């Protein structure tokens, strides 16, 4: 391989990665494991070395190694691997990269189509996830909202404000969650019992049962994570909410991005 070709290879962008490899997997409906690692700048030569050394360690895995120079991310595509095997391979990769002092951040692991239906979206989300991780060598399993069996994580929103309903329903559904809404405490309890949601997002001031009573009921009858989303800012309300087992306390006006990030974190923590 000429020097030129090698440098080129070390600079392939994500678009190319998708066009070259993932599109093929998507079309042929084959599965592949994906590992993204934040690395120091790799020359094409280095990348070759990495590839060889790793193949020695795990001979039965056929993989592509691509390096994106702009984002400084090393992408590994593992042929025909499920998430569990990919995860295992990521451990090997991590040790190797740490030894060589090449790792500058975290590692994100996923598998297509197990983790997500769309390969492009998966890649984009993984890159996002990678940029959020701070610790060197931290391995994150990309949390697909699709569970095995294909049903999305369920969220119950309890709030008497119709605009909040409407907004959260649309926003969270677009993010791939299954959303139920209730406008008062009693309806909230009823829906909670019917749907057994993973996360309950509740306001504290509700007609019927108030938020505290709702939380008590939920704690008695299930194991949903509770996020309080309220306009109340009094310290007593915050402390009381946490005492009743709220996992998070967000005040209105709120950022939907932050809310969704917190929901995601809760759901993934719950699964592990």
């Amino acid at each position, binding site marked *: 391989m000429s020097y030129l070709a090698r440098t080129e290879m070390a600079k392939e962008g994500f678009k190319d990665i998708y066009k070259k490899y993932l599109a093929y997997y998507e079309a042929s409906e084959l599965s592949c494991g994906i590992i993204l690692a934040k690395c120091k700048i790799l020359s094409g030569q280095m990348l070759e070395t990495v590839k060889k050394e790793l193949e020695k360690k795990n001979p039965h895995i056929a993989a592509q190694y691509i390096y994106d120079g702009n984002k400084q991310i090393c992408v590994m595509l593992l042929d025909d691997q499920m998430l569990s095997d990919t995860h295992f391979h990521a451990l090997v990769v991590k040790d190797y990269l740490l030894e060589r002092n090449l790792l500058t951040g975290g590692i994100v692991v996923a598998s297509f189509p197990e983790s997500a239906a769309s390969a492009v979206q998966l890649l984009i989300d993984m890159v996002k996830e990678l940029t959020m991780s701070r610790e060197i060598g931290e391995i994150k399993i990309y949390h697909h909202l699709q569970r095995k069996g294909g049903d999305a994580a369920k969220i119950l929103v309890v709030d*008497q404000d119709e605009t909040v309903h409407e907004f959260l329903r649309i926003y969270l559904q677009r993010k791939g969650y299954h959303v139920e809404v209730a*406008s*008062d405490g009693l309806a909230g309890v009823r829906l909670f019992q019917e749907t057994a949601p993973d996360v309950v997002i509740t306001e504290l*001031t*509700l*007609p*019927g049962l*108030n938020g505290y*009573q709702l939380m008590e009921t939920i704690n008695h009858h299930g194991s949903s994570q509770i996020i309080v989303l*309220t*306009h*109340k*800012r*009094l*310290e007593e309300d915050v402390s009381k909410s946490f005492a009743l087992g709220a996992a998070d306390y967000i*005040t*209105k*006006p709120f950022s939907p991005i932050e809310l969704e990030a917190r929901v995601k974190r809760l759901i993934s923590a719950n699964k592990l």
Partner: protein
Amino acid sequence: MRDVLLFYGIFAVYYVITINSLYFFILLCSFTRIFQIRAHANYSRFPSLAGSEHVPPISILVPAYNEELTIIENVRSLLALHYPRYEVIVINDGSKDQTLQVLIDEFQLVYSQHMTMHRVLNTANVRGIYHNPAYPNLYVIDKDNGGKADSLNAGINLSHYPLIASIDADSLLEKDALIRIAKVYMENPEETVAIGGNVRIGNGCRIEDGVVRDVRLPDKVLPMLQCVEYLKAFLGGRIGWSAINGLIIVSGAFGVFRKDYVIKVGGYRGGYPGEDMNIIIKLHKYMLENKLPYRVAFCPDAVCWTQAPDTLKILGSQRRRWGRGNLKNMLEFGRHMVLRPRYKVFGLLTLPYNIIFETLNPYFRITGLLALIGYTVMDMTNSQILLIYGLLNILYGVLLGVGSLLLEEIAFRRYPRISDIGKMLLYTVLMFLGYRQIGVVWRFLGHIEFFRNNNTWGTMTRTSWNWKTEVKKTLSG
């Protein structure tokens, strides 16, 4: 004799012109103020305020007498207000029905032995206080019957916060009503002694779980007339009066007061109706006599939905009661304060207006009309004068009504449909074909009752807010 009658008739015509012109002036004051109010509301961030530490805590007092049908829904809606720190104190005024029991059952309240009540105001015997830690901000006082004023005083004795809000048990507050009123208070907490809320007619609205879900105009004639009447009184009248600090009444259905001054003026006066006007007069008097800077404010965007009587019998008893209350207040305070410069706007404008155009209104109108009719019967040469009298009444009245509607459309638009505007305009005109006249008669009858020492509260029957849903249930079920 004819000349006397004619002279008196012409006098009555001028009377009508004057009253309406004064009202027109107040309406103009309302117009100047409404834009300010609207701007304030637009630039206020109520959602953030509603959770803030810096909002003063409020005690909501809910006197309840025979309210078993509506009380649960109302208390539930009060417990779900957008407000950081407040308490709801329901005062069961010796109800003859199951009001207390219904509350106890619904909220699992227990009789509490050690609740302290400061007896700063004298009230009828308090039998007990009920509370449930699961609802930390709900208290129920059970006492012997003593009337509405007495119940409010008992509530003041128990209340823990510096502001009190008096609310009728048959009214529903919008969930941001309290925070809006509190904002008006916070603009000038030192001088604001009382703030009135805007009362609207809830008949016809779809109400679920104590929340107004769908604002509709009433479909019956009487509530519809009252709806237009309230719009005129509150938007056209009270905004203007508050702009010149001459507001004489904060509706008993929804108002907020500074507790310290209410106690200083001796609390609410029992024994007579009109305790809501009475407390405001006393506050004006106290502040002016002590030369303290003060204001009685009105907050038109803090809305309270109330049930209007929908039969002539109940409406008549309500209006007669208002007449008695007004007369009593004018005899007790108005007489001594009217036209005295020390009472400033209140003594020089509000009280004369009230005495001449509210209290004495029936006498002028009835006698004026009789004189004109008598004159017309005796001598047909000047019969157009009767026509002038009638037309003036109607045209000027309609003008003022339309002005109030305009205010509503500019600032609030609670009734969004175009057909609603047409309907309101229609009823603004219809008001003058019988409704206004019968109102004058009711007030007169109220005065007669007063002088015959009949000072009962009168009847007020309730229908459950949810009657429509009840009906639907029975139909579908």
